[in-house]
């Protein structure tokens, strides 16, 4: 909200400088986000009276003005504007003064006539919105000549931009802010605003009455202004509106808006002639009812919307916006002025649903005090009459504003517990400044009367907050909580995530965090069949863009996108990325979240290194990384041949941990690789974090007393037979002394038949009880060779 400091000063003393003022308001919860001087460059202009107007001797399109800036100061000014009359008061920029756009005004020769400065338009002052006609800005009659224009127009002001929290609807008005200021600064006295409310009439002339057919409108008042003359409002009123962030429109509309800004009660002016009947009924909408609102849009309603109707037809959307048919126009002769109270949630709902955030709806959604209905109406009608907009035609009302106060108790104990002081006298002093009073003086517990303007204060804790924030939070001395019931646990999940992070980082991976939402295309690019649940991601109902419109069912799209982005922006080296995070699987009404670990590795475009090709990543180096991560949590990961829709059919592995399929490691399908225009192969893995969370215990071996004996075995395998299968076979056949088997060579080429591979293993034999003799090992190893040959394996 924009708050004019000048206007605020009319309502309350401001006893400190503006910076201190802004800081203390901010500290107490009313954040001053900015302070601005209106049209700061505009300087040096004076008000002046136009004494004479003559046509320029040689230029028919120019006028020579004789102006009087009082105090004997007279000048001649040339203007092309045609809207001036003798006697008008205008802003005059003498030579040396400065326009809003920073231009310095000089003396100018117009074909022999010297113009001493210039008379100014609203635009030159920097306020084009207040212009009501083409030409020079004519100031309000009665403005004394010779005054600084900044002062005369109320531009000698500071505009505070204040952010009001949603619980403080009472601060969406000048009087509300003034009340708060008086509470924050004990030395600041409120200047009372007590409008004289003329007595309510029994009826309005030529108007049948008001019917309230919905409890969400408890109180509705309607005033009449007759013999209406629609004109611009006074210039100073227009400036004030503009500085408060609203556009001036006409005397009637400006009066309603000024009053809303002043006391927070939204008002609506109907052109009486635009009402279908001489009555108003407030009721719920019927489904399908329509209205053309003031912003020129057709609105269709549901039962939940609250309408102002006349003769059975909607004429306005209660608390949100009026209809176009009854809009004030130049021909309006009778204004019916609505001042009513509507229930917050009801208005909030309609305004949010229709996307209609009007100033009125904004205030109603944050609660408007029903006791403002009458004063707002009185002030607005008074203002209209005083501006000559029309004559007072009486007012009527229906309903009841309810209770003016309600009671909330505050105990010394709770105050002490929360803000470390239980001083109820101190509390009472602060609360009184907020307009909250008390009758009794019990030392331990006090009952306070909360005014209806403060619906946010309903429980004891609310009172504690009021006391604490006005007293100042900085008076509380920080201390650690005294009792520790248990130690803090980072949990196994966090330990698992940390193991993944630190192991992967140490192996050269960069940790990434990608969006949990991805594009549908990035998922379909992975070619999941319809039967795969990953093909059907859960969609956002209101995404920001299609690129982030569905929840990821796998970490792969985010990782691939990140890798592509790096490649496309010129990254030439290897890419190793790892991410841990949730994937989301839709299961009927529910969404299952599964914690995964995923990675993406590309050897990169430039793999040259002083160490040659050994540094280049491939499926097997990545396998080692994944195994290391699982080993860091005491888990052994086994790879077996497998498949994934987006995996290379010959280079895809399933990962088995604790006997269960835990995920995959693969090279991206060449078809997709070329679709992405990748410069090299891409390796991807994605595994469940669950086994890592369950794991965590390091596994240690037994210390052996006797040395091992090593033997090698070398054999020829059909291509496609996995080394791990042969290794398992050896394990199964080698007898009890086999301690370990390690594959140390894979060879194809010269000496090996086409379509076959030579595999060589190193076997470690050990007897835990004694030193094995060579001859014992030879016998065992020989037996193994025989058994392998019996299985049809060709040894070398």
């Amino acid at each position: 909200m924009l708050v004019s400091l000048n206007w605020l000063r009319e309502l309350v003393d401001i006893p400190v400088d503006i910076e201190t003022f802004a800081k203390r308001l901010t500290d107490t919860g009313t954040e001053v986000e900015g302070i601005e001087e209106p049209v700061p460059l505009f300087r040096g202009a004076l008000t002046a009276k136009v004494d004479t107007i003559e046509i320029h001797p040689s230029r028919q399109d120019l006028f020579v003005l004789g102006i009087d800036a009082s105090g004997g100061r007279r000048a001649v000014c040339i203007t092309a504007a045609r809207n001036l009359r003798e006697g008008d008061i205008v802003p005059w920029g003498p030579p040396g003064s400065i326009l809003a756009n920073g231009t310095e005004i000089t003396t100018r020769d117009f074909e022999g006539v010297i113009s001493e400065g210039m008379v100014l338009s609203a635009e030159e002052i920097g306020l084009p919105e207040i212009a009501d006609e083409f030409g020079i800005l004519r100031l309000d009659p009665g403005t004394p000549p010779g005054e600084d224009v900044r002062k005369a127009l109320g531009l000698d002001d500071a505009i505070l931009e204040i952010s009001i929290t949603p619980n403080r609807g009472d601060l969406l008005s000048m009087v509300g802010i003034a009340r708060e200021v008086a509470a924050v600064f004990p030395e600041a006295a409120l200047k009372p605003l007590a409008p004289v409310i003329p007595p309510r009439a029994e009826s309005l002339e030529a108007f049948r009455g008001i019917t309230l057919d919905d409890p969400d409108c408890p109180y509705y008042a309607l005033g009449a202004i007759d013999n209406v003359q629609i004109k611009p409002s006074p210039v100073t009123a227009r400036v004030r509106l503009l500085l408060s962030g609203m556009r001036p429109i006409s005397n009637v509309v400006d009066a309603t808006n000024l009053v809303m800004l002043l006391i927070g009660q939204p008002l609506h002016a109907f052109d009486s002639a635009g009402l279908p009947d001489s009555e108003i009924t407030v009721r719920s909408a019927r489904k399908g009812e329509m209205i053309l609102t003031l912003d020129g849009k057709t609105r269709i309603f549901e039962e939940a919307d609250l309408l102002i109707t006349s003769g059975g037809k909607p004429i306005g959307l209660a608390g949100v916006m009026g209809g176009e048919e009854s809009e004030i126009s130049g021909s309006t002769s009778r204004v019916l002025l609505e001042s009513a109270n509507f229930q917050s949630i009801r208005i909030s709902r309609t305004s949010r649903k229709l996307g209609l955030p009007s100033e009125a709806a904004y205030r109603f959604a944050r609660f408007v005090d029903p006791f403002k209905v009458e004063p707002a109406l009185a002030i607005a009608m008074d203002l209209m009459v005083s501006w000559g907009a029309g004559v007072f035609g009486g007012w009527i009302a229906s309903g009841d504003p309810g209770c003016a106060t309600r009671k909330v108790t505050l105990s010394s104990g709770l105050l002490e517990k929360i803000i470390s002081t239980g001083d109820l006298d101190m509390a009472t002093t602060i609360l009184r400044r907020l307009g909250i009073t008390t009758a009794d003086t019990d030392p331990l517990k006090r009952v306070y009367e909360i005014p209806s303007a403060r619906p946010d204060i309903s429980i004891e804790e609310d009172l504690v907050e009021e006391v604490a924030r006005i007293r100042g939070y900085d008076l509380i001395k920080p201390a650690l909580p005294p009792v520790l019931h248990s130690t803090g646990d980072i949990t196994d999940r966090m330990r698992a995530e940390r193991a993944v992070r630190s192991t992967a980082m140490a192996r050269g991976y960069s940790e990434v965090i990608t969006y949990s939402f991805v594009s549908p295309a990035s998922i379909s690019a992975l070619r999941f069949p319809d039967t795969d649940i990953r093909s059907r991601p859960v969609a956002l109902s209101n995404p920001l863009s299609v690129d982030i419109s569905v929840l990821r069912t796998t970490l792969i799209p985010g990782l691939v996108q990140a890798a592509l982005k790096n490649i496309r922006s010129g990254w030439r080296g290897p890419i190793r990325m790892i991410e841990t995070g949730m994937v989301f699987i839709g299961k009927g009404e529910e969404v299952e979240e599964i914690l995964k670990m995923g990675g993406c590795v590309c050897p990169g475009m430039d793999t040259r290194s002083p160490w040659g090709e050994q540094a280049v990543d491939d499926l097997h180096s990545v396998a080692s990384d994944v195994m290391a991560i699982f080993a860091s949590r005491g888990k052994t990961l086994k790879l077996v041949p497998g498949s994934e829709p987006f995996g290379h059919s010959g280079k895809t592995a399933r990962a088995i941990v604790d006997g269960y399929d835990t995920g995959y490691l693969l090279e991206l399908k060449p078809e997709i690789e070329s679709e992405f225009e990748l410069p090299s192969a891409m390796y991807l893995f994605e595994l469940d974090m669950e086994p890592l969370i369950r794991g965590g215990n390091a596994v240690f071996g037994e210390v052996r007393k006797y040395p091992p004996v090593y033997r090698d075995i070398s054999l020829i395998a059909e291509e496609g037979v996995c080394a791990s299968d042969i290794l398992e076979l050896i394990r199964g056949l080698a007898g009890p002394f086999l301690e370990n088997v390690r594959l140390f060579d894979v060879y194809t080429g010269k000496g090996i038949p086409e379509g076959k591979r030579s595999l060589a293993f190193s076997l470690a034999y050990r007897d835990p009880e004694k030193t094995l003799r060579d001859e014992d090992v030879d016998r065992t190893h020989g037996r193994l060779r025989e058994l392998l040959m019996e299985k049809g394996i060709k040894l070398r």
Partner: protein
Amino acid sequence: MGIIAEDVRRIRSVFESELASAGNLDEIQKIRVRFLGRKGEVTSLLKRLGALPPEERPEAGRVLNELRDSMEEDISRKESECEGKEVALRESGEWTDVTLPGRGRPWGAFHPVAQIAQEAIDIFASMGFSVAYGPEVEDDFHNFEGLNIPPHHPARDMQDTFYLENSLLLRTHTSPVEVRSMKKWGAPLRIIVPGKTFRRDSDQTHSPMFHQLEGLLVDENISLAHLMGCLEAFANRIFGRNLAARYRGSYFPFTEPSLEMDVECVVCSGKNPSCRICKGTGWLEISGLGMTHPNVLRAGGIDPTRYNGFAWGMGLDRIAMLKYGLNDLRVFFEGDLTFLNSTGGDR
């Protein structure tokens, strides 16, 4: 005896001249074998001791042992001399370029937000807070209603929400885990909730996905002072020095009273009016906090007449930006390696 003495002199003299002319370890080894080996000259003399008259044997034995010991000593000395020379020769003839890049993969890189989360969790764990988790896809009750934000409440405007079908939504804050944890564990309770949160917002300082760290403490007789104590201890640890803190009134539907915490600008300490980080104010907003609203305790099944507590929420991304001096939040989630892996040597 005479013969022995003579032999000793002779052997000694030959040994000395041979050893002096030995140039490398191999030659020295040959000399050792020739004189002191199993069939060496000194060894043969020792074998002849038995042939001497018994009264001469002790003296002769002593002389021979002395001879052997002194020869051993001379050989050892000569050996180490030689060795030193050879090692020196090897060192002076060899060189490697120590500035070559290290072999094997360079270190990767932690993500700044994950790193800050880890540090923050450790700090709060040291104050007795345990990590708690909750779903990222939430229902309206836990994200809003249970936190004292009824439907159509204007406070919902504070958080623009992503909705899914079936009245599910992406959590807009980590606060829903408060109610879930209270229901699960009851009081007393100390939890922190690190995690992803989502709001329909995107600019330089807002990302549709970001990270929060929520905290909740429920116990008997808990005060604002305790909340301030915990958060100031945290701020001082995470930024590595004691920072001034200040508190301002604020509003959150789920706390009462509600506050904002600012700490002294970590970059300029308020001394630079044109500081980019604090915009010259000298203060940085780091957390929203307050005493847990009794309605929220009730929603979590905790009796607010016996227990009270406090809660806070802070943006981990923001703290990472402040700590590492970064100014665009969105780059956090693009996986840009020039940003993430600026220390890696792998470009």
